[in-house]
């Protein structure tokens, strides 16, 4: 074993894992010698993220839609619940009429919808997903040359941290839940300013690498006589060790210059309540930090939760939470929808609009950060009152480096949500040709939005 970081030690680390291909882009960085694989002026990187909010949008069986535009193709009209997207509308595609198909399985409320979108598999129970989520596949493909393979954020300020990103189906990511936590992770200890003139490799990093080698050396002994479920768990554990090694290896490289990277000031501790105004403010603050983290090459992949499937958010002073209101509020006979629910849905969507505006307000190259990323926005249900998993609102936002023909409304009648997921994967260059199982299996991306 050597304290020096060399090619052999990287190979050992990578080949010990399950998927060798995921190590290769890193190796390219190392072999490059000066760590400039993404700073050679050729091309700005494409980033990917998911943005989730709970309780869908309003589209009642009686026809009172508040979000599905009438016009399809480019130039769709802004519907009331999509008001917050109007500023960035030309960079956002709207997908309506897509559904999660549970086949013979029950609709697990506030679970089957996003489980289907993210894994392509209708889940058998509400306590786990039946496969890994596709964001991890994208991270394996495009996330290995940055300090973090991916960053998970939960802005909901709810009782338990929420993340829907998983490699095993049972262990979900532990997300950053406060702006301060996110700031510390991105710009706290271990952050290397790419624009600093006196960069020196930190010798303690090599010592920390040796700690991990001792752990990894025992992998085979530990794996012996292990059951199937535990093997999956241990694979994930060693995957986490490898990601840590990768982080350390990258910190030994001089970071490529990045003029757009301006280290933000540390945020103050905000109030902690699940009321929608506080959650939206938290979303905005965390979006701003995340955007700079992306610009500064700390990560290329993220998952962002605004509110959980069974959302706990509420309007301050109202005794019922939003979730209860979606179920209890009667449909107004004249309007054809639930007025209070629709109003709160608009507030919840305000945060998504704000999130995208933050991404769009940072200049990068000849465009904005949003032009060089793809964000898939989606929810757990369509019409929340009846836990519908039909017509789940889905969005693709951002230019994906010129690959996404944005600004369109795509409407189908009951096609699988996995088509949108597959489209997202292919737009950011994940090597995936087919996604989903059962009726949701698809190899057809939505080519109308692909340049």
């Amino acid at each position: 074993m050597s304290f020096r970081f060399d090619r052999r030690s990287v190979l050992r680390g990578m080949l010990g894992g399950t998927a060798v291909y995921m190590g290769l882009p890193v190796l390219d960085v190392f072999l490059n010698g000066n760590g400039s694989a993404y700073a050679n002026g050729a091309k700005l990187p494409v980033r990917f993220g998911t943005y989730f909010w709970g309780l869908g949008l309003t589209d009642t069986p009686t026809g009172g839609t508040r979000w599905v535009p009438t016009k399809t193709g480019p130039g769709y009209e802004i519907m009331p619940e999509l008001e917050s997207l109007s500023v960035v509308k030309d960079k956002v595609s709207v997908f309506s009429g897509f559904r999660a198909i549970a086949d013979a399985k029950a609709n697990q409320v506030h679970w089957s919808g996003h489980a289907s979108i993210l894994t392509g598999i209708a889940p058998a129970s509400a306590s786990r997903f039946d496969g890994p989520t596709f964001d991890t596949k994208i991270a394996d493909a495009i996330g290995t040359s940055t300090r973090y393979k991916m960053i998970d954020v939960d802005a909901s300020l709810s009782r338990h941290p929420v993340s829907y990103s998983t490699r095993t189906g049972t262990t979900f990511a532990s997300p950053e839940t406060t702006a301060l936590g996110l700031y510390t992770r991105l710009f706290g200890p271990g952050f290397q300013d790419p624009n600093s003139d006196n960069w020196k490799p930190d010798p303690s990093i090599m010592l920390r690498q040796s700690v991990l080698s001792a752990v990894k050396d025992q992998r085979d002994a530990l794996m012996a006589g292990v059951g199937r479920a535990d093997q999956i768990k241990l694979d994930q554990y060693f995957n986490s060790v490898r990601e840590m090694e990768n982080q350390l290896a990258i910190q030994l490289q001089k970071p490529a210059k990045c003029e757009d990277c301006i280290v933000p000031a540390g945020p103050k501790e905000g109030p902690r309540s699940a009321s929608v105004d506080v959650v939206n403010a938290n979303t905005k603050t965390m979006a701003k930090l995340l955007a700079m983290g992306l610009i500064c090459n700390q990560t290329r992949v993220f998952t962002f939760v605004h509110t959980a499937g069974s959302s706990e958010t509420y309007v301050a002073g109202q005794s019922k939470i939003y979730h209860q209101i979606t179920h209890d509020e009667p449909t107004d006979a004249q309007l054809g929808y639930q007025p209070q629910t629709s109003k709160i849905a608009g507030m919840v969507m305000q945060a998504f609009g704000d999130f995208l505006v933050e991404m769009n307000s940072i200049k990068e190259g000849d465009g904005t950060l949003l032009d060089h990323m793809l964000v898939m926005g989606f929810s757990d249900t369509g019409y929340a009152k009846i836990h519908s998993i039909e017509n789940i609102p889905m969005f693709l936002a951002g230019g994906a480096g010129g690959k996404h023909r944005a600004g369109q409304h795509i409407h189908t009648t009951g096609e699988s949500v996995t088509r949108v997921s597959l489209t997202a994967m292919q737009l950011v260059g994940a090597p995936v040709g087919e996604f989903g199982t059962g009726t949701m299996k698809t190899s057809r991306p939505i080519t109308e939005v692909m340049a």
Partner: protein
Amino acid sequence: MHGIAAAAPVAVAQQTSPELKPIKVAFRRITESQYRHTIADVLGSEIQINARFEPEKRDEGLLAIGTPQLSLTSSGFEQYFALASSISEQALSGKKQAAVVGCKPADAAKADEACARQFIAKYGERLFRRPLTDIEIATRLKTASLGAQQSSDFYAGLKLALTSILVAPEFLFRVETAEPDPGNPQQYRLDGYTKASRIAFLLWDTSPDEELLAAARSGAMHTEAGLKEQLTRLISSPRYEQGARAFFTDMLQLDGFENVVKDPAIYPKFNQSIADGAMEQTLKTTIDLLITKKRDYRDLFTSNATFINRPLAAVYDVPFLSAGEWVPYTFSPSSERFGILTQISFLSLFSHPGTSSPTKRGIKVNEIFKCEPTPNPPADVDFSKVKDSTNGTIRGRLLDHMENAGCTVCHRRSDPPGLALEHFDGLGQLRTTENGVPIDVSADVAGVKVVGAQGLARFLHDDPKVPACLVRNVYAYGVGRKTGIREEDYLADQTKIFAGNGYRVPDLMVQIASSPEFFKVAVPSAARTAAVPSAAATTAVQQSARNQQGVNP
């Protein structure tokens, strides 16, 4: 390298070797409190532990059942890695250094193999809960030696070696191992170290101490007398309280207080000190009644003796006259405050941010105390008949559910216990009206008419499902897995003994930990690439592949 991985496929190919190979039956991620207790025991209670721990998972009512299903995410590993470095730094710096290390290097500026080996073997055994293999020691010796060279500091090398122990899966997971039973070589038994860990975590919520490890080493854990001696020692120790607290925190789901949310516009009295106090009140009450005074478990529902502090007194609306932090307090016999269900903890945890919730409370009464889970609601419930009620009481709205055939089955069971508790709002404050209308707290619980919190408490006190559920919870908590049909008779027998002993909780825990079933091996389904060791094990493997809770027959 361990010989097992290479040997297993050969054994299968030949189909001749009748010998079972050791297997790992479970990887149970250690909880935050187990981590804290272990570090305090092994390296000193003054060590500061500042980290965000990975979220746990509750399954079938217990975190202890969910945790064995969990792995470690990359952000979680980052946290444990930083924490391990910080612990090593604290443990091996300053005045403590000499005492912790226990030997002196020949030259403090250089590597010293003998002293490093002694340190690694000693702390490795305490933290892995079993002796380290030669290779496990050798890899850490290498780390220590290179670290010492690089920094010209023997102790810097030890810090790295200790860090590598603290981030190893063998520390972060309780690796439960089974070996062939010498008395019956076709059967597995848990090895002595795994048995020692099971009772240490059950009774003390921490890793085995030196004495337990010695009992595992000598084989005493496999004898009835040896096991009994250890159980008696553990249950008589003051540290048993720490173990009992961990059990009741899990069972009563008090971890929910870490993130409880209330709307300050509706409950201005709620704040962090109320949340902390409410949790502590329930633990103090439970420990005092069941562990210190060794009273009948069922008295938990009916005893009006508790402890309060100043912030809680404001919510309970009772005077607090002491200068101390906590004082014993007994609610008057006529008070609606009666037993554990009327404490702020239960009432506020299982409510909405701005209202009470008879359904949530009822579901939790059934789940926590009777081990009766409520299925998820059907997906396509149409609530359109349900009127928006800003008037009247919540009972009316729930009655609408009761009229709906799809909802009735569950709501008829979940709502009544909650309706009996409706004199307490979403924070747990007493009230008798809602929207100006008097609240009716009568309810039909499983065919019995009860009135209010006292009525519900008396009903639960006499419900035979309640002690049976505790027995199941103690067992499942200790073994870390769901119970199934195979364990029904065993649990029924244990419940009879529990009743015969006057429903005393410490006796129950010892009784369960002394029973052979507590150490029964549940063979996991085989890994995809690993071979199955023997025909006898194959049968069990196939059975448990269909049913994760299947145990070795």
